[in-house]
């Protein structure tokens, strides 16, 4: 990377791949037409969007009509949850009052905030009943918990594929199989949504094998541009648009298509598909090298979340006697970019809800560091990072001394 900077925050965002950028560029000023226009300008944009759609359909093993372009995963997740609820309510209104049921949604305690807050708000507005599945110390949910949580009025299950902070993988295809079985016996089928934003680059995304009805993703996590994403909507899924306006995207997402962005997403998917296997293997090796080295050579550190059921690019650690924001800023001063679950970095007062859900103590959550690798990460960068990390830890641990130990001994 430029200026000898080392970027280890690929789970936050990725740089746009050079090939992707090149493919996008004509769609800003030359082929700028509105994809909904009937003239040649519009047709050229529409063709480009069509090709991108085909790339995505090929990648997710679905049809082009099942791909809905959005502004990113946050919008996709909002559309999935609110759109399903809106369609349900529309139908519910037609029923006699005594047959109307308040719908039930199941999600997990450690979803991304765009899913969590959407669900929390709907619950607060008394529009849904909500169940949060717990997550265990390995950062994975239990299918038995899900089975127990399902009710007669369960409308939607929304479970993330890979957690954005700790990188743990949820058993999506197993849930898909379970639901297929359960839905056979039900008249009102449960709809299954997964936020696959962090999974697309490394895990199986065949929507048929996964058994999902809805799947969200974002381009900027896979070397595509920011501001564009997708919601896969299985044919026949009862969902309506939540943003009123035009009939774009099969009347599910109003608004002029972001043709340059969509072209970028289409290319990013194509490039990803070509190299996915090779890159996954390479990045996984780098991850294992880093985890082994740190656990061996750094004192008082823990790996958060399962080691095996984990994304190839994610390493989430808690260091005792240091606070994450300090750690992050000291690393940043040394030209290394990473992320933390500490409250201070997020602009809120509470540490990461994900880490607390795993059962970590607040100080362990405050002392967390997320390192996420990408296709441009090299072993050399990791060697430099480890050396810098050791120095920074030594310095910060000197500043904190034995203060935490003393705090607890006095409390006793």
């Amino acid at each position, binding site marked *: 990377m430029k200026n000898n900077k080392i970027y280890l925050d690929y789970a936050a965002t990725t740089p746009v791949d050079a090939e992707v950028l090149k493919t996008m560029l004509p769609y800003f000023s030359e082929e700028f037409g509105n994809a909904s226009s009937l003239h040649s300008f519009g047709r050229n944009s529409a063709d480009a969007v069509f090709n991108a759609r085909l790339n995505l359909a090929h990648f997710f093993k679905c049809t082009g009509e099942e791909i809905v372009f959005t502004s990113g995963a946050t919008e996709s997740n909002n559309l999935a949850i609110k759109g399903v609820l809106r369609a349900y309510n529309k139908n519910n209104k037609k029923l006699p009052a005594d047959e109307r049921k308040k719908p039930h949604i199941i999600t997990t305690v450690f979803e991304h905030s765009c899913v969590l807050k959407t669900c929390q708000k709907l619950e607060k507005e008394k529009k849904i009943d909500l169940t949060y599945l717990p997550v265990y110390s390995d950062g994975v949910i239990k299918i038995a918990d899900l089975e127990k949580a399902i009710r007669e009025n369960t409308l939607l299950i929304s479970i993330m594929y890979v957690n954005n902070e700790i990188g743990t993988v949820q058993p999506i295809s197993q849930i898909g199989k379970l639901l297929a079985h359960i839905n056979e016996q039900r008249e009102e089928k449960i709809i299954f949504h997964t936020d696959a934003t962090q999974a697309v680059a490394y895990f199986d995304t065949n929507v048929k094998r996964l058994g999902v009805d809805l799947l969200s993703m974002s381009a900027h996590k896979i070397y595509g541009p920011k501001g564009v994403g997708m919601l896969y909507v299985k044919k026949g899924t009862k969902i309506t648009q939540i943003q009123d306006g035009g009939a774009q995207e099969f009347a599910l997402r109003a608004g002029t298509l972001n043709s340059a962005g969509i072209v970028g997403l289409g290319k990013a998917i194509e490039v990803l598909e070509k190299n996915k296997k090779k890159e996954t293997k390479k990045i996984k090796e780098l991850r294992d090298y880093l985890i082994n080295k740190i656990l061996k050579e750094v004192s008082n550190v823990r790996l958060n979340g399962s080691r095996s059921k984990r994304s190839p690019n994610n390493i989430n650690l808690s260091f005792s*006697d*240091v*606070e*994450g*924001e*300090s750690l992050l*800023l*000291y690393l940043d*001063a040394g030209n290394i970019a990473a992320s933390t679950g*500490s*409250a*201070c970095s997020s*602009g*809120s*007062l509470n*540490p990461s809800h994900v880490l607390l859900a795993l059962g970590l*103590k*607040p*100080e362990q959550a*405050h002392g967390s560091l997320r390192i996420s690798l990408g296709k441009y990460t090299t072993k050399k960068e990791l060697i430099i990072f480890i050396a810098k990390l050791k120095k920074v830890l030594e310095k910060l641990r*000197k*500043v*904190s*001394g*034995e*203060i*935490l130990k*003393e*705090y607890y001994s*006095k409390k006793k």
Partner: protein
Amino acid sequence: MQYSKEVINHFTAPHNQGVISNPDGVGMVGNPTCGDLMKIYIKVKKDAKRGEVISAIKFETLGCASAIATSSMITDLAKNKTIQEATKITRDDVAEALNGLPPIKIHCSNLASEALVAAIEDYKKKK
């Protein structure tokens, strides 16, 4: 959220960081839930003219950049002050001396003046 240059200076190269082995007063504030713990050590000397003067001061802090920077700053502000003068240093004085803190940090990580007061109280108790 952006830190001032002064905060970054104190954070990356804190002043008076460490331990005083035979302190006259020690104060510890904060808790691990919020993420910040601070400890201030002071040495007090009697000055014929000025009375009780903080002759040495050091700190240890577990916390974010602003927690470390405010700890460092308060040691600068309190050094060679009488204990009456030092007791009057407020959170706002510390924030101001650092050319401001991000709004969210004003409350959560600006405990240094309280740690100093706790150290002075401890000194008075031991006297």
